[in-house]
């Protein structure tokens, strides 16, 4: 086991697991941002593990997760808009989640860039990093927008009012 694998495992245990706990419990307004954080951190774990196992081919998993993770979050925001509006998340916790996203992505991607050196793999890494940052930024904005516009949405034919 080398340092990269150890770092990946540590991030899995200390980053993904608590975020997953936050996703599994509490009101929907906390679950949605936590779900986004979980997918972001998990893509970073995949990147670290790919480096640790010495296999650039494994990076594809992180690439796929970096686009499908935010898609999943936006889906929850879209389909559970009224629940989000009913109990909006505290702005401070939403801000903290987003900040954690922003800090974690460069903290992992930049060392990996130095380790891989220039080439196609570097471009792929930067694309994944960019997609992750963009995805988490959009996810937090979508939650905020759903909360502010939520009451109008909940009344429309598409809103899922469930009491």
């Amino acid at each position, binding site marked *: 086991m080398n340092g990269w694998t150890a770092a990946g495992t540590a991030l899995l245990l200390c980053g993904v697991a608590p975020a997953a706990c936050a996703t599994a419990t509490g009101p929907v307004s906390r679950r949605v941002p936590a779900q986004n954080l979980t997918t972001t951190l998990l893509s970073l774990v995949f990147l670290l593990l790919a480096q640790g196992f010495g296999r650039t081919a494994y990076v*594809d998993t992180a690439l*796929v997760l970096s*686009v*499908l993770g935010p*898609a999943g979050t*936006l889906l929850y925001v879209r389909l559970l808009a009224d629940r989000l509006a009913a109990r909006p998340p505290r702005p401070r916790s939403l801000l903290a989640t987003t900040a954690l996203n922003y800090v974690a992505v460069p903290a992992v991607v930049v060392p990996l860039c130095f380790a891989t050196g220039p080439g196609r793999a570097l471009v792929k890494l930067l694309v994944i990093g960019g997609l992750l940052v963009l995805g988490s*930024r959009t996810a937090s*904005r*979508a939650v905020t927008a759903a909360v502010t516009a939520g009451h109008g*949405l909940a009344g429309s034919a598409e809103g899922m009012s469930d009491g």
Partner: protein
Amino acid sequence: MSMRLRLWVLAAGVLGTATLFVLACAELPGFGGTWHPYGDRAVHAALARHTANTIASVNFDQRALDTLGEESILFGSVLGTLVLLRQTRDERRLPPEPARVAPPVRRYALIALPVTLLIGLYVVAHGQLSPGGGFQGGVVVATSLHLLYIAIDYRALERIRPVGLYEVADAAGEAGYLLIGAAALLTGAAFLTNFLPYGTFNTLSSGGTVPLLNAAIGVEVAAGIVVLLARFLDQAVEIVSGRDEAEDET
């Protein structure tokens, strides 16, 4: 059956299964052992056929008939869902109101849609080289189209998604797999034999029929999932029965 009786029956079944399973585990080859006779032979065969991704070689060459069976299950369950979720006579379509979507979400989804589509196609196309293939890439492609539902609204998705066309594509994927398999018969080999030249190792055209079968699966999975989700979205967003309608009007 009362809840209490059911729990007793369940407990007996679970205990029995657990005991047998633990006994069986003790006899299984230990986790992480070095004895993998099938695996070693599969790797050898895949390398002999110039396919870099052994898993793709197992799926689309060495055990291609097995994949045909799996694919038929997929086709069958898509068909079953289509029949179960069709619009019945007492239901009618109520076009959904356009949803308001925050501008940043719309911008992100319009950027992410082509990127996701591209990643999906990349995953399908490199199936015989790097991890991926028709099954995984097909799902990613299908998901990417549904970003339109998230970003704009259901009517925008419907405009770029003629369901009939995707139904044809689904059938074409299934038929393509069978036809490529049958083409081997013309050369005098068995059904689904890898009859094309194997090509250069670790290039896009390597592996003989593997990339073709992979693409057929990709088309089928992508089209099948688009059709599936179309039916689910229709049911959840558009189709209402007489009673729902009365409720929506009040």
